[in-house]
């Protein structure tokens, strides 16, 4: 009966209840959509990066990983010994030579990242062919670069750069294909060429970048270490990107907490008003033998039902939207392309609907509502039935 009363009491002032529900629903909606999109974005970025950039492990000359963001031009200083080849035979891997260069259109110089790799192995490893939007493998440039330089398949261009011997070099190339992976960093300024051409250009017969799939055995890890090679797990490779994404999730959580706190204040207000309006009724319930703890239960139930309905609305609407975005995705705004080198983004943002996590938010909404009802409930238990019935 107390549950029935609690439920009906909520609908005594429909507009007030609807407004309170709406604020809570919005809070839960915001947190579910915000976190769903951020997690979706993180998963998408990791997926793209693993598929197009890192594999499961990246092997570098020792020291490069630590320095890579500070000394991007020094990649050729971290060459890998050829003795690594027998160790990696049993692993699915691609050995590459990666370095920085410049493409010029006569007016401007465009900094690029050149990846020299075996065409077939790279294709097999990263499925490059499936990401081609024009032409074929060979000399492939990324989509944003092609757009900026107004290059099309068949167009010539000049690649310039510093070799391993620290002399300047230039090479005439012709675009055979244009690629778009969805990873904005990759799509921004990447040039894929054959390993041999890269080695000739850089004046070295070494490599400096190996991507690998699968787990490396501890024995092999030790051998690699002896050769001055460090194996970086993809998670560590992408750590900075993941940290930024997690930071964004934290921002969403903080904003959501603020919204939910405001909703909580709204519920306190609603329940206090209900308590003040129904003082006489509370007195009657007490006269009929309802104990303070049962009065408290009545108000906590009202708050919880209010929270349950509001949170459920937010859960359903937010969950549906995130699920829709998980299936369809939304295009990244053009501004994001400009920011893509510093903020981890992909060409489309996909949501990620995590039922258990979202259920947790729903329960959290109910708990907040119940907590917000505690003070009005406590006030109700402190009423003197004689005074309130007389009024």
């Amino acid at each position, binding site marked *: *009966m107390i549950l*029935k*009363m609690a439920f*009906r*009491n909520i609908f*005594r002032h429909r507009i007030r209840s609807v407004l309170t529900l709406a604020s809570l629903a919005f809070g839960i909606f915001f947190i579910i959509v915000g976190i769903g999109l951020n997690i979706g974005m993180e998963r998408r970025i990791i997926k793209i990066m693993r598929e197009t950039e890192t594999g499961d492990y990246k092997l570098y000359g020792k020291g490069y990983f630590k320095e890579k963001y500070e000394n991007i031009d020094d990649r050729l200083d971290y060459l890998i010994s050829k003795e690594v080849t027998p160790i990696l035979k049993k692993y699915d891997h691609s050995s590459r030579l990666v370095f920085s260069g410049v493409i010029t259109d006569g007016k401007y110089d465009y900094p690029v990242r050149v990846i020299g790799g075996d065409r077939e192995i790279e294709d097999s490893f990263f499925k490059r062919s499936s990401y081609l939007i024009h032409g074929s493998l060979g000399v492939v440039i990324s989509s944003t670069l092609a757009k900026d330089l107004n290059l099309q398949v068949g167009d010539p261009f000049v690649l310039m750069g510093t070799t391993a011997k620290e002399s300047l070099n230039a090479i005439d190339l012709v675009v055979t294909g244009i690629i778009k992976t969805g990873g904005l960093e990759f799509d921004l300024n990447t040039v894929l060429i054959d390993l041999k051409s890269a080695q000739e250009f850089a004046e070295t017969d070494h490599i400096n970048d190996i991507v690998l799939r699968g787990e490396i055995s501890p024995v092999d890890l030790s051998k690699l270490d002896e050769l001055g090679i460090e194996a970086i797990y993809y998670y560590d490779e992408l750590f900075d990107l993941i940290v930024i994404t997690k930071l964004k999730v934290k921002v969403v959580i903080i904003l959501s907490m603020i919204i939910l706190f405001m909703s909580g204040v709204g519920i306190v207000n609603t329940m206090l008003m209900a308590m003040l309006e129904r003082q*006489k*009724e509370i007195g*009657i*319930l*007490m*006269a*009929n*033998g*309802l*104990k*303070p703890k049962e009065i408290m239960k009545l108000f906590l139930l009202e708050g919880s039902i209010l929270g349950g309905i509001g949170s459920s609305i937010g859960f359903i609407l937010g969950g549906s939207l995130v699920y829709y975005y998980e299936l369809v995705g939304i295009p990244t705004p053009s501004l994001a392309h400009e920011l893509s080198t510093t903020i981890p983004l992909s060409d489309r943002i996909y949501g990620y609907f995590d039922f258990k996590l979202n259920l947790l938010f729903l329960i959290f909404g109910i708990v907040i509502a119940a907590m917000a009802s505690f003070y009005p409930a406590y006030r109700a238990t402190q009423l003197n*039935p*004689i005074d309130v*019935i*007389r009024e």
Partner: protein
Amino acid sequence: MTIVEAKKITKIYKHGKVEVKAIDNINFKIDRGDFAVIAGPSGSGKTTILNIIGAMDSLTQGNIIINQKDISALNKDERADFRRDQIGFIFQNYNLIPVLTVYENIEFALDLCEKHTSIEKKDKIDNLLNELGIFQLKDRRPSELSGGQQQRVAIARALIKDPILVLADEPTANLDTQTGKEVLDLMVKINLEKKTTFIFSSHDVMIIEKARRVIKIRDGKIEGEDYDTKDGF
């Protein structure tokens, strides 16, 4: 047999530094099956006495013994238990729960004190509603009832748990004369048939005339007691 015994009871209210003696060292007894009225002008202390008998209020001094149990020393929860199991209240303003139907208002009071199967509960409530002539109103909300109908529902709510005492605070004050008479006659009938003890607080002449016992109060003191020896009023 005595059902209510007040022994030198005193109630003092404090309003800041001012003390108001609402009841001043009074003694009285009420017998089981009585139809008693505590009568007196406004502010005389009659409602305070009713509240003390109903364990709604505590005493400053003295003892109040209900059904051979001293309720003066009960704590808040024990007083609530006592009220829910032993006392039926009828108020001047009916005071039904607006979100519950007539049936649910009565069911609520019954649920609080006893556990019944839904069939037993339904039989008990339906019988009482029939007795009080309000069966046809059982699905209505209080806002859909007249004052007289609401007071009948309040009577049903008070009686459903078979209380040892029904305490009625000015039950006819908000009713017109005819409806007030009908409601009062109903309570007289219940008192005679079920031997339920009724204690009123009122200055309504109609109730005083019907009462078997009148305790007159003025300024917190008993001014006099009248016994009506007529059988059946």
